[in-house]
């Protein structure tokens, strides 16, 4: 059992959890992830670690509601527990002084890009961060990213905050302005990472992406997380999760991540039906209780 010692809503549907996990906190390096299972019947899902505090023995994760498990997770609060948290898994980000590094965080990917950006800054790099979100409300960790970056650019798809557009627009601008870029680190939706890979391939800029395929054990045992790298299978859990973006077959990643779409939708629908049933039951109980109380008043 792993105790949630703080839960905080960062944006609609995006929550940060600080979890008591002393062993993981001691060992975590940027780029690594945990696998968690909320309850006995739960599935195992990988979640990137945002930060850790070895002194307090805690790690923090940022979770965006999508399927049943993430929705259930995001319904938890301070004091609740998660049945299993295992990690830190995967190879840490390769941190060195590259020169100028552009760190791109798309949506909740920003939470995963953040520790890498911070480590790259500490290693002496000039860090330019690009943070993208659908709208103003979904821009997360702006102050944190500002604190570890030499400059931060923000885009929203609808223009409700900062510049309207996509993170790729900002990266293109940097390239067109002749900014010397030694490394690009991109974490976010697959389409975003693919678009960035396509752009930097032409410019011959080394680019690293963090992949999030379906996983079970996270230790290399099941092989479910295999991704095609230069046409060869590699396991994201032990060989990654970070890979050279120019060698990744993103189409296969999208295809494999769709393997359980029907099941995922069914699971979510059942989950909502259960929640609705529970809410209805609660309403009925309340409704039934009201007349009784009124009768009491009358007497």
């Amino acid at each position, binding site marked *: 059992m792993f105790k949630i010692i703080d839960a905080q809503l960062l944006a609609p549907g995006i929550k940060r959890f600080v979890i008591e996990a002393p*062993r*993981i906190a001691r*060992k975590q390096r940027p780029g690594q992830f945990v696998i968690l*299972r909320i309850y006995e*019947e*739960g*599935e*195992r899902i990988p979640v990137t670690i945002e930060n850790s505090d070895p002194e307090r023995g805690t790690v923090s994760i940022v979770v965006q509601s999508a399927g*049943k*498990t993430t929705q259930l997770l995001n319904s938890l609060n301070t004091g609740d527990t998660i*049945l*299993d*948290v*295992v*990690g*830190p*898994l995967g190879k840490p980000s390769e941190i060195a002084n590259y020169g100028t590094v552009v760190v791109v965080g798309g949506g909740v990917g920003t939470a995963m890009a953040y520790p890498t950006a911070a480590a790259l800054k500490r290693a002496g790099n000039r860090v330019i961060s690009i943070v993208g979100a659908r709208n103003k409300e979904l821009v997360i960790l702006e102050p944190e990213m500002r604190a570890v970056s030499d400059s931060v650019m923000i885009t929203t798809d609808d223009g409700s905050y900062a510049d309207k557009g996509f993170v790729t627009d900002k990266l293109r601008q940097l390239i067109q302005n002749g900014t010397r870029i030694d490394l690009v680190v991109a974490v976010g939706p697959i389409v975003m990472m693919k678009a960035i890979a396509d752009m930097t391939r032409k410019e011959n800029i080394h680019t690293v992406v963090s992949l999030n395929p379906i996983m*079970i*054990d*996270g*230790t*290399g*045992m*099941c*092989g*479910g997380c*295999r991704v*095609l790298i230069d046409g*060869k*299978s590699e*396991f994201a859990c*032990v060989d990654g999760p970070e890979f050279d973006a120019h060698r990744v077959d993103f189409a*296969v990643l999208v*295809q*494999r991540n*769709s*393997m*359980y779409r029907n*099941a*995922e939708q*069914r*699971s979510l629908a*059942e989950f909502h039906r259960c929640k609705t049933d529970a809410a209805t039951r609660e309403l009925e109980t309340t409704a039934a209780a009201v007349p009784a109380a009124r009768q009491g008043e009358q007497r």
Partner: protein
Amino acid sequence: MSTTAKKSVNPLPLKERMKVPRQLMPEQAADERAHNFTEVNLGYSPELAQQEARRCLECAKPTCTDNCPVGVKVKEFVELIVVGDFLGAAAKIREDNVLPAVTGRVCPQEDHCEGKCLLSKKVKPLGIGYLERFVADYEKRMGTHVVPNVPPTGKKIAVVGSGPSGLTVAGDLIQKGHKVRVFEALHELGGVLVYGIPEFRLPKQIIREQLDYMREMGVEFETDVVVGRTVTVDELMEEEGYDAVYIGTGAGLPQFMNIPGEHFNGVYSANEFLTRINLMKAYKFPTYDEPMLDLQGRDVAVIGGGNTALDAIRSALRLGARKAYVIYRRSDAEMPARAEEVHHARQEGIDFQMLTAPVEFLSDGKGWLTAARCVRMELGEPDASGRRRPVPKLGSEFDLSLSVAIIAIGTSANPIVQSTTPGLGTNKRGYIQASEETQRTTRKGVFAGGDIVTGSATVILAMGAGRRAAKSIHEYLTTGEW
């Protein structure tokens, strides 16, 4: 007057014993069990067990024990069955084997004890596995087992991995008075016994009971710890005060065939397929959250001929597969699976495509598997493994329509512990180097055994390594000599 030979407790004269047929194991009917996950074998009754036990020839030099990787004293425990002391028989087995209910079910007895049974020269060998299973189950039903009480030595051992070899080390060392803590990467204990071997061959309740017994003896367990990531071997020794570490992390990474289309949706490794079913209970979706592809009415094939392959395809059959194939590139004679499993699988209607190998997977153009393109093989000269090498027959290609293909062609070394433990020697295939006699590695105080040393093998061989390691760890902790 006096005779040196101990008088036999067996009422049957020696020459009568061979006339008694090997007692059949009662089992669920094949057409029934093909649709459920309940155990196939039902177990001997006390009468059947005693009848079978009386077949033992009580050899002066029992080859059964010599051929048991953990050295179970077969003749002695069988004698105790003959006289009806079933609990005594269980205790006798436990002197050498901490998991009798497990090995009685999954051990390939034909390769060990039963394979060398003198009876087998003329008739069928003694049902040693069935008898072992009987006494272990009897002991469980009686709910009495002895918890040994030994004075503590003050020494601490960390066991990495809670599979058969780790549990053997833990069980043996706790009985020597050492403090033992087992670290497991998954959320459940038991390693391959839990994530790999299905319920119909090894009910999980049996593992839970064995674990409870070990807890009673004082073994501590910690799940959700990936040694090498969550904590390193060096940290266990230097910071957490362990005097010795045993590494039994198991088989590791599943191998793929590296043929086109292996990434299509519908192609699983056997490890993933079995883990989804056994560990994650995906067949109970949506009560359990972990999904798997619906096999109802689908055609499924496993590639490979080992126990894992048969476990996977027989599970697929139980989940409603319409056709369930085993695709194996050699012939029956070379199949590494346990004889009883092959027999059971045939009874259940598994279609064995022998001397056949897939060369490519085909899809619907959207990334979903539709077929395996296969080629027929013939056997040529023996290869490095001593088995005749399969050679493709020209022009024999054909397409086998499939929704799901499960690859069960073996595993390679998981590098997590090796790569995070400086000075730990590995062989060229990445497995940990350990002495065959003492299981000592190249690092002082660090021992290793089971599949992480030998590559994929069997439960009993892993337990044998655990046994040797426990003995050698005890020696090291007692003498301090490396």
